[in-house]
């Protein structure tokens, strides 16, 4: 039965059709008198190659362009598979270049360019208060001020209030965990224009909370993922937050971290929740106009510029604001002459601003690294291309044209670049994670959040691909211009070697390697200098931890008693060598200044100030030069400790002579009085590791200071002991005994804090060392390949010289002289690049001593080693040439 067939023929059908054709013809031939065998043979002969015909018939149906591309791709992969070392090195170089650029630019993007992932972020503004008493420091608002501002006619379309806080949440094991939370006005999400990922966000009705209802809480996407595994059933679930019942009403979108884009926030609660977090004895930003603790984020009306809105806001609010602060201004100069201002909030509260110059420098260097990687791959491709001269000549002799060869080289280069791009993805992911570690703000205790920027990855891949492909076709261009007969006959390499290109590649490689090595050397010396210098205290084996005592509904004296009780128990615990508490820990860059003066002397000095508990200097191992530490009985502000520098500058006496002297202190009119110096400590670094130790005054932690600490200040406990885990266990045990149900924040080794303070320097040192070392190795390999290639090109010339009487040393000298000349040019070019980097460091990073002779000398020595190794092998090869063999072969 015949089968209807109108589509593409299968291979079997074509075979059967041809078979029947042959048999029909054989029948006809047989009928004309041939024997059956002869007829069949003749029919087969005249039909021709059946396989070829089948292929041609098949080709009609296949897409020729696609088929050619696939063939080309297949051939390219076969060619590349034959040289796994070359392919591996190229892919590694490109992967590192692309991945590193992606990681560094991700950091730069987060610190300098990224806007909040909200609707129309350019219209978002921070509303802050400026005070002549604290110039340059923008102050926040209080809720009464925020409400008053909302009621006034300004260019702000809407205004929301944000307060960062911590809440205690039981984890899966029932243990209380202190989590980061944002307390917000219920319109906060509307102001930002954010939509929920699940459930709902806060509604106006949520502002009117009553005790019968649970608190509405919106989870962050990351907390929803980690705690509830993105289960939709989490919506509507009831949880206990700091001992109060709350209902999960929704989830914020992925990537949204409120107004702090790089600091994780786990949940969002109505700002009224603050009332439950604070006992009434503390200052209250919800009710007190002068308690400036609410970050105000507003949205400008359409078409209004920040500048115009700022002018209008100042006009509308100046008199009103000063009236609001009139009662406070009498007692505190900060509240005098206040004005309101607007600033852009499109990028939120950036935690990474201080890293921007470092990241910019690194990005410039990484761009150089990417170029270096492309150059290195180009060099390797060039050397490989010239090795393939004979192959190209054979292909030209067989009919290939220039287009075919270029197409082939281009496909091979694209495969290499694609391999590099694939490898770049995990490198970018690991690199970004690694970068986050360096970008953590000292003392923040929270990891900075950065995610890889895929757009940058694509851009870097495109750049690498273009460079690799462009350079990849160079060998084919040269090969196609050569006469295949001459090449095949002579058995030597090209007659027209691209010597200029290879020289430029070598010089650029040497220059970039020089720059990277010199920068790495400088970065390491800086890091060693900063980390090895005397801090004035010993951070080893000291762990910091804080607890949320503000959750307790106790009076300041009650909390003070708790601090003392905890310290006493901790100091008696066997796992703890010594324990103390302090208001501010070292190297956080937070540096409050206190006004000090000698009674009877009009001269007022501003010096750094901290509040500390007993055994502070013992715990930190800071030398006490005279007097004593604070004791348990020091429960008022009548005693103080100063450091040696303060004794000299303020009292103009030595440490011993300072004991018993009186100092008048004043801190925003909240601390006012005269205290007696009971101890003098050695100078130590305080807020900034890059700065010299400042003159300091220490006051004891008292009930008064707990009260003044306000609504969100917890003292930090400093625990010394060699076993960190034992310290943590001891603290949790003591805390559970004396303040059950109180959550604690995570433990932070003080050394980690020092490392975080050196984040910029560590980032530069590690990155530059890695890439400097890598550049050294790549430069070595690429230079060796290119020099060997050039030696092969010069074989006949060297052979003739040797035949004419040149000694092996002179033959080797030809190579070494050329290498020395290239090295000199590379160093000159590298010095110019280094000069540019130094200029940038001096201006953008304010580095006083950006590079030294030692860095330059070190880089030169390393490049000399490269030259000796990379030039030595070809030179040895040249010195051992047997001229007659070479010349006879090439004849």
């Amino acid at each position: 039965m015949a089968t209807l067939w109108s589509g593409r023929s299968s291979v079997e059908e074509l075979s059967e059709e041809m078979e029947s054709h042959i048999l029909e013809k054989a029948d006809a031939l047989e009928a004309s008198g041939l024997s059956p065998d002869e007829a069949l043979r003749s029919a087969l002969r005249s039909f021709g190659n059946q396989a070829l015909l089948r292929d041609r018939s098949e080709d009609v149906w296949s897409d020729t362009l696609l088929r050619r591309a696939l063939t080309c791709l297949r051939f390219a992969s076969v060619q590349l598979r034959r040289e796994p070392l070359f392919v591996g090195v190229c892919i590694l170089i490109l992967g590192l270049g692309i991945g590193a650029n992606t990681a560094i630019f991700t950091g730069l993007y987060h610190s300098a360019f990224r806007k909040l992932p909200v609707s129309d972020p350019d219209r978002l503004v921070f509303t802050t208060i400026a005070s002549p008493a604290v110039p340059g420091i923008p102050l926040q608002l209080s809720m009464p001020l925020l409400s008053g501002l909302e009621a006034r006619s300004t260019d702000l379309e809407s205004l929301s209030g944000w307060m960062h806080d911590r809440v205690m949440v039981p984890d899966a094991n029932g243990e209380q965990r202190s989590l980061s939370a944002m307390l917000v006005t219920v319109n906060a999400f509307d102001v930002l224009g954010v939509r929920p990922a699940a459930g709902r966000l806060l509604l106006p009705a949520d502002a009117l909370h009553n005790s019968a209802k649970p608190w509405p809480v919106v989870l962050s996407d990351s907390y929803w993922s980690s705690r509830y595994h993105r289960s939709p059933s989490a919506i509507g679930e009831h949880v206990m937050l700091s001992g109060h019942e709350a209902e999960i009403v929704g989830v914020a979108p992925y990537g949204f971290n409120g107004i702090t884009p790089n600091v994780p926030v786990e949940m969002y609660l109505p700002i009224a929740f603050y009332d439950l977090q604070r006992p009434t004895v503390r200052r209250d930003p919800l009710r007190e106009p002068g308690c400036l603790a609410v970050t105000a984020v507003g949205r400008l009306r359409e078409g209004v510029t920040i500048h115009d809105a700022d002018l209008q806001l100042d006009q509308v609010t100046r008199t009103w604001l000063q009236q609001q602060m009139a009662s406070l201004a009498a007692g505190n100069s900060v509240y005098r002459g206040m004005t309101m201002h607007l600033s852009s909030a499109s990028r939120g509260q950036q935690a990474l601003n201080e890293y921007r110059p470092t990241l910019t420098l690194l990005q410039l260097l990484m761009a150089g690294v990417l170029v270096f990687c492309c150059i290195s791959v180009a060099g390797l491709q060039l050397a490989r291309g010239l090795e393939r001269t004979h192959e190209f000549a054979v292909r030209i002799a067989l009919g290939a044209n220039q287009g075919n060869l270029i197409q082939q080289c281009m496909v091979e280069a694209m495969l290499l670049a694609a391999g590099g791009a694939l490898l770049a993805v995990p490198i970018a992911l690991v690199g970004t994670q690694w970068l986050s570690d360096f970008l953590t703000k000292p003392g923040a205790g929270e990891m900075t959040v950065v995610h890889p920027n895929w757009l940058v990855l694509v851009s870097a891949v495109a750049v690498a691909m273009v460079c690799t492909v462009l350079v990849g076709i160079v060998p084919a261009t040269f090969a196609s211009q050569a006469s295949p007969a001459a090449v095949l006959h002579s058995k030597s390499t090209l007659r027209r070697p691209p010597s200029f290109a290879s020289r430029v590649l070598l010089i650029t490689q040497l220059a970039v390697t020089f720059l990277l090595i010199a920068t790495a050397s400088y970065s390491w010396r800086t890091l060693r200098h900063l980390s090895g210098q005397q801090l004035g205290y010993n951070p080893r084996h000291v762990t910091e931890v804080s607890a949320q005592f503000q959750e307790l509904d106790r009076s300041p004296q009650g909390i003070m008693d708790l601090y003392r009780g905890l310290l006493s128990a901790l100091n008696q615990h066997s796992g703890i060598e010594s324990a103390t508490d302090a208001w501010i820990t070292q190297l956080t860059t937070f540096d409050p200044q206190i006004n000090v003066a000698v009674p009877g002397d009009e001269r007022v000095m501003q010096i750094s100030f901290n509040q500390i508990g007993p055994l502070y200097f013992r715990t930190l191992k800071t030398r006490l030069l005279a007097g004593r530490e604070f004791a348990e009985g020091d429960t008022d502000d009548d005693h103080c400790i100063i450091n040696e520098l303060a004794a000299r500058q303020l009292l103009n006496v030595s440490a011993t002579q300072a004991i018993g002297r009186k100092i008048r202190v004043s801190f925003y009119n909240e601390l006012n009085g005269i205290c007696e110096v009971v101890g003098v400590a050695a100078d130590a670094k305080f807020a900034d590791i890059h700065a010299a130790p400042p003159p300091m005054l220490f006051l004891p932690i008292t009930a008064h200071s707990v009260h003044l600490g306000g609504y969100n200040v917890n003292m930090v406990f400093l625990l010394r002991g060699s076993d960190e885990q034992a310290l943590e266990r001891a603290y949790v045990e003591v805390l559970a005994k004396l303040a059950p149900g109180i959550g604690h924040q995570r433990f932070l080794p003080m050394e980690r804090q020092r490392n975080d303070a050196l984040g910029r320097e560590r980032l530069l040192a590690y990155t530059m060392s890695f890439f400097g070392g890598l550049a050294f190795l790549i430069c070595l390999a690429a230079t060796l390949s290119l020099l060997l290639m050039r030696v092969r090109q010069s074989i006949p010339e060297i052979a003739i010289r040797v035949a004419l009487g040149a000694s092996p040393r002179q033959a080797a000298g030809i190579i070494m002289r050329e290498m020395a000349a290239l090295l000199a040019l590379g160093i000159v070019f590298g010095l110019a690049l280094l000069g540019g980097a130094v200029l940038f460091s001096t201006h953008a990073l304010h580095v006083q001593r950006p590079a030294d002779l030692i860095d330059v000398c070190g880089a030169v020595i390393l490049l000399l080693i490269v030259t000796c190794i990379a030039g030595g092998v070809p030179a040895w090869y040249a010195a051992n040439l047997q001229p007659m063999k070479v010349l006879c072969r090439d004849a």
Partner: protein
Amino acid sequence: MAPYTYLLYACSGMGYPSMAKSRDLFPGALEMMILRSLQLRPMHGYALVQHIQQGSDELLQVEEGSLYPALQRMLKAEWVVAEWQISSTNRRVRTYSITPAGKKHLAEETSRFEAMLKGIQLVLAH
């Protein structure tokens, strides 16, 4: 031999003895002859070869190497359809028939060919 002489041979349906290869026909000539043959009746591959050969008085030799790719091209263009049938020799063969699209194409190509032939003849007549 000048190119136009060869063209004349090819266009006038005469095979050129020393270059009797289908690729030497002008583009589309083989397809035109196949379609014209199929317009008479459906045929299988071998029958087509025979028909063209006999129709050209043995002057044109259609090679199988050109026939089958051409038939595949025409199937793809939907000028012909194919179906399996039993031949007079009791053998399963694939028979091709012309489609309306094939007829239209044949008419267009024939008209174009005639115009071209007329033009060439006019030039050669001077």
